[in-house]
């Protein structure tokens, strides 16, 4: 009712304000620069203090899962970077779930916040500049309780990393420590999370893992240094390290980008098989739609730090609803189809320091309507599994809620 009317009003206002409100952000005066530095110092100090306070009391970071069948739930999570040019809202109020024993593909172009999402989940952001300032990340501990990763103290995180959540990185060539032998690096993660195991048991487990990831000469590789292995082999070692403690969730951050296509297929197959063997979920971060189509059960599409569409792989690939997703689907080459030039989405991503207050995709969108000048679109459910943030479905779909952003200035005063 009134919500829709109100929307029309604000959209008219925003459209007129957008023109005069446009300012140059590429140049920062010395005065502004000082102000930003001062603000950053204050806010990061406050956030660090708050985190320390919250970490002291387990009650402040234990919570309950909304749905016990999920491994991880992101709930309006905001991760900001307090940089020298201003606050960069790298991830601003994203919500999605990773169900048990499934693969969730997170796709989007470079800089849309995919990696920041995964690093927030691991608490591996470059602090103090990078901070998760709002929302919750709930990690299912398997015993009915859940942890809110946002407030979890570092000591507790160290027990979770590699044990409950593990991560495979993009660049296998540099992800292993060059001065330690492979055996030691795999042993380390097992020893850390299973202090009761004897040395022989740890070694046996490492050997088992090396065999599992398809390393033929495991005795030899155990004694080797990373530089003696190829990129594909190293990525297998990274996978062995990630799976060694049978975590509930494996984050694979573009695991095949640095590998050639044949190895890529092998690694993805391996991941998929191992995931089923140890009953864990995979959060697969990539910008390769082909990889997602082949692997993922669910797909989350991100754009400029927000989730714009999520659903099953079938929803996203066969019934894309958001204009951006539609554009993405059009822009990927299809075997057997002859085109002169691939489609590309016009324009570019807005400046993350100074995001517009209307839909971030409006200026690039070929389907925008009058609503689109209003405030950022809410999440709208268009089928049981399919959720999209686009006003084109505002009248027909079920409105779930707006992404919650965090007012950093208010955070400092409040």
């Amino acid at each position, binding site marked *: 009712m009134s919500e829709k009317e109100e929307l029309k009003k604000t959209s008219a206002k925003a459209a007129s304000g957008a023109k005069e409100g446009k300012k140059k952000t590429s140049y920062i005066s010395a005065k502004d620069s000082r102000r930003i530095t001062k603000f950053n110092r204050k806010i990061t100090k406050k956030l660090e203090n708050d985190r320390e306070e919250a970490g002291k009391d387990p009650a402040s970071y234990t919570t309950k899962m909304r749905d016990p069948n999920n491994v991880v739930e992101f709930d309006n999570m905001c991760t900001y970077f307090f940089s020298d040019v201003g606050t960069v809202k790298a991830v601003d109020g994203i919500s999605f779930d990773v169900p048990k024993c499934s693969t969730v593909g997170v796709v989007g172009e470079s800089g849309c916040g995919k990696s920041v999402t995964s690093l927030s989940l*691991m608490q*591996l952001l470059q602090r103090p500049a990078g901070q998760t300032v709002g929302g919750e990340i709930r990690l299912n501990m398997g015993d009915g309780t859940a942890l809110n990763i946002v407030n979890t103290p*570092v*000591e507790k*995180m*160290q*027990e*979770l*990393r*590699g*044990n409950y959540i*593990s*991560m495979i*990185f993009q*660049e296998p060539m*540099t*992800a*292993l*420590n*060059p*001065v*330690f032998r492979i055996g030691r690096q795999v042993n*380390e*993660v097992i020893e*850390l*999370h299973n202090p009761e195991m004897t040395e022989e048991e740890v070694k046996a487990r490492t050997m088992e893992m090396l065999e599992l990831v398809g390393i033929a000469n495991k005795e030899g590789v155990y004694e080797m*240094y990373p*530089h003696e292995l190829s990129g594909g082999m190293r990525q297998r070692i*990274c996978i062995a*390290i990630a799976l060694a403690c049978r975590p509930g969730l494996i984050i694979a951050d573009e695991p095949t980008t640095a590998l050639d296509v044949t190895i890529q297929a092998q690694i993805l197959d391996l991941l998929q098989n191992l995931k089923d063997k140890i009953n864990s979920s995979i959060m697969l971060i990539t910008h390769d739609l082909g990889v997602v189509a082949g692997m993922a059960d669910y797909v989350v599409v991100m754009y400029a730090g927000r989730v714009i569409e999520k659903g099953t792989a079938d929803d996203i690939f066969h019934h894309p609803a958001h204009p951006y997703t539609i554009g993405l689907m059009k822009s990927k080459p299809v075997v057997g189809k002859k085109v002169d030039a691939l489609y590309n989405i016009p324009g570019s991503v807005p400046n993350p320091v100074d995001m517009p207050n209307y839909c971030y995709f409006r200026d690039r969108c070929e389907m925008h309507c009058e609503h689109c000048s209003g405030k950022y679109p809410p999440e709208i459910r268009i089928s049981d599994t399919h959720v999209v943030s686009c006003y084109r479905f505002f009248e027909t779909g079920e409105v779930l809620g707006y992404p919650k952003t965090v007012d950093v200035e208010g955070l400092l005063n409040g």
Partner: protein
Amino acid sequence: MLKYSIKRLLYSAIILIFVMFIIYTLMYVMPGNYVQQKAMELATKPGATKSADEWLEDLNRQYGMDQGIIKGYFTWLRSAVHLDFGDSWKWNKACTQVFSERIWYSFALNVVTMFFEIIIAIPLGIHAARNQYGFSDYFATVFSMACISMPSFFLITILKLVFAVKLKWFDLTGMVDPRIHDSLSKFGQFLDIAKHYVLPVITITIISIGGLMRYTRTNMLEVLSSDYIRTARAKGVPERKVIYSHAFRNTLIPLITILGGSLVSLFSGAIITEQLFGLTGIGQASYQSMVVGDIPFTMFYLMFISILTLLGNLLADLLYAAADPRVRLA
């Protein structure tokens, strides 16, 4: 490894021959050299029978300075190969004897200094890197820059003014307290010498920690931002272990190279500090020899330094290979 070391040693020997030739030439052509001074002195003595020129000719023959540079050098080289470095003109003793009397004073000074340098500079560098752009980082940076920039003679003057003149805790110069030293027991004598080493050790430590600290900081920062540190954290490795096991082991590689190379400099003495504090080390001896143009001793000392440098480079390379599994020597 052995083959590589032998090859390097052979190269070093050839380099050494040329280096020594350059040094000999420089010493030989230096105006107002020892022989000329000696000739002037003898000619102006009361009752001198010969003129300065005659004395010069005489002395040149006696000191072997009449052979020209090339022949003179090879004469020196021939005896040097037989480990005969001749007698020092200034000290009137065999060069090797002067050396063995004094080297341990310098060695002790440098060993103690290096110990303090390492235990101060490396932890400070790591600490600064962990708190990049924080207060302690800026403090360490300013402190180390001040240390690097400080000329040793200036620092020595300040230290002497504060601790020797005003506070009277230490003597201005000298190795021992001449009034009481002989009456002390063996251990007391050792303590007496140790007390006179305090200011020189402070001086050299302050001057040398800056460089090492900056070097540690830079390397640590580079390592800390690398992917494998992120991997280690993602494994759940505690932060202390990330720093002191994963990161430090990698930071150590360039540090070993530097410290390994400077191990040999333990023997080289500290010319200015020793001179100003009156320590009878090898640095002071070489300084005083150079001032009067004592060719045999200067040649001997500079040859010693050159050998140390060449050995230091070799040692650094060998240690580099030992510390970093990716490096293989061939």
